[in-house]
């Protein structure tokens, strides 16, 4: 039964408990690699990167006793495909209230697919200043073969090989009924 986007639900690859453990591991890996929470600046990419970033910030505070800096970016204005999507999509607020100069930024997004969203996020960050280092953490990596730009994730919740006709949906309580990760397929009709 296709939904209004012509997508059919196929299989569930993560439930809420697995998501929580994966995010916990990502938070641990981040503080391990960066030797603690000092100078860390966690930046969630709208929309679904935002709740994930909030959970990671909370977990880092639990682990290190120190809360890292936190911000949100909306990359709509930096997309490379605006002229092809018809009417311009709504823009939401970017909130990078602290200076990013010399900080270690960890971009957080739900799914890494072609890499174009991350390219847009990097361009946007550079317009704000010169960070010391930018790294990427994603809950799901759809695999290198889909990458359209040389972009990689430094921290990955789960790598899920997929087809082009498939879509991965990360559901979060802020926007959906449940917390889970599903594979959807575009229906044949």
């Amino acid at each position, binding site marked *: 039964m296709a939904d209004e986007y012509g997508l059919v639900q196929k299989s569930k690859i993560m439930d809420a408990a697995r998501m929580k453990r994966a995010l916990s591991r990502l938070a641990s890996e981040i503080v391990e690699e960066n030797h603690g929470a000092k100078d860390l600046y966690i930046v969630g990419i709208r929309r679904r990167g935002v709740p994930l970033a909030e959970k990671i910030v909370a977990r880092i505070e639990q682990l290190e006793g120190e809360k890292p800096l936190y911000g949100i970016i909306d990359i709509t204005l930096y997309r490379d495909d605006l002229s092809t999507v018809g*009417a*311009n999509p709504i823009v939401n*607020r970017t909130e990078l209230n602290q200076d990013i100069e010399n900080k270690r930024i960890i971009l957080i997004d739900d799914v890494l697919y072609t890499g174009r969203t991350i390219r847009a996020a990097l361009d946007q960050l550079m317009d*704000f200043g010169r960070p010391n280092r930018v790294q990427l953490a994603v809950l799901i990596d759809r695999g290198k073969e889909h990458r359209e730009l040389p972009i990689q994730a430094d921290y990955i919740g789960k790598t899920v090989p997929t087809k082009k006709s498939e879509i991965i949906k990360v559901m979060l309580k802020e926007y959906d009924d449940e917390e889970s990760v599903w594979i959807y397929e575009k229906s044949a009709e």
Partner: protein
Amino acid sequence: MDKPFRRRDLLGIRNLSSEEIIGILNTAENFREINSREIKKVPTLRGKTVINLFFENSTRTRTSFELAAKRLSADAVNISVSSSSVTKGETLVDTALNLDAMQPDCIVVRHSSAGVPHQLAKVSKAAIVNAGDGANEHPTQALLDAMTIREHKGKIEGLEVAIVGDILHSRVARSNIHLLTKLGARVRVAGPKTLVPADFAHLVEKDLEVCAHIEDAIKGADVVMILRIQKERMDSAYFPTLREYSIHYGLTNERLDLARKDAIVLHPGPMNRGIEISSDVADSSRSLILDQVKYGVAVRMAVLYLATGGAAIGE
């Protein structure tokens, strides 16, 4: 609604739905932050051409549109009538077709005759944005006024808004009346009888009242909007002297005290100090005139972003 505005042109507020208006305001909200960054630029309209075609003098609005275009990385070109071929006798349609041949993405037009942007929209492939056509409409002014009101009052619905001055010749008044009543505010207009036609109340379906005296309009108002006495449009004697006008209709602290304690004062600018508004009021903390200018750039960025969005007409 993820795509608030699907039109190619912004010709007026009259034909917009309240959802479209709110969509534009919400978009403008999120563009504000760019104007306080160190690097006030985003690449969104890179490579797009915006032409400011101003047949009427205006530094403020034209600069606002020019900055809005440049901050979106568009190429902005200004054409003002004194230096254009119109003085050599070219028709409006020919001017439009000639510009179109240079493939602009957007033309922002201001003209002393109503309906010029609508004419251009029929002839030109570019997105047309009305920057003021005669006494008809000035949609971006009404939008930035609404943004200023929303910012300070949290909402527009249910507010009492007084608009005072030369209503007859004011496109700012007309656009504001359409927008405010569409969004659920109640509007009271006041001015000399010669400048406020009695049947003006029929401009919109409801929530518009014509008051005989400025005091009646201002009493209990949440927002007081003062219009400029447009000396350049007065082709006949609408009132005896400017001094007479300022005595009976000028906004002073005494008159402002009739409004609510937390009322705000707006003026589209440029203001004639001491005539339609006293210096005391203009410089007080209740006057948001400079905020209006600030939000003007964000609103115009939002309008340019939405109008050049590539949507086909009626998509």
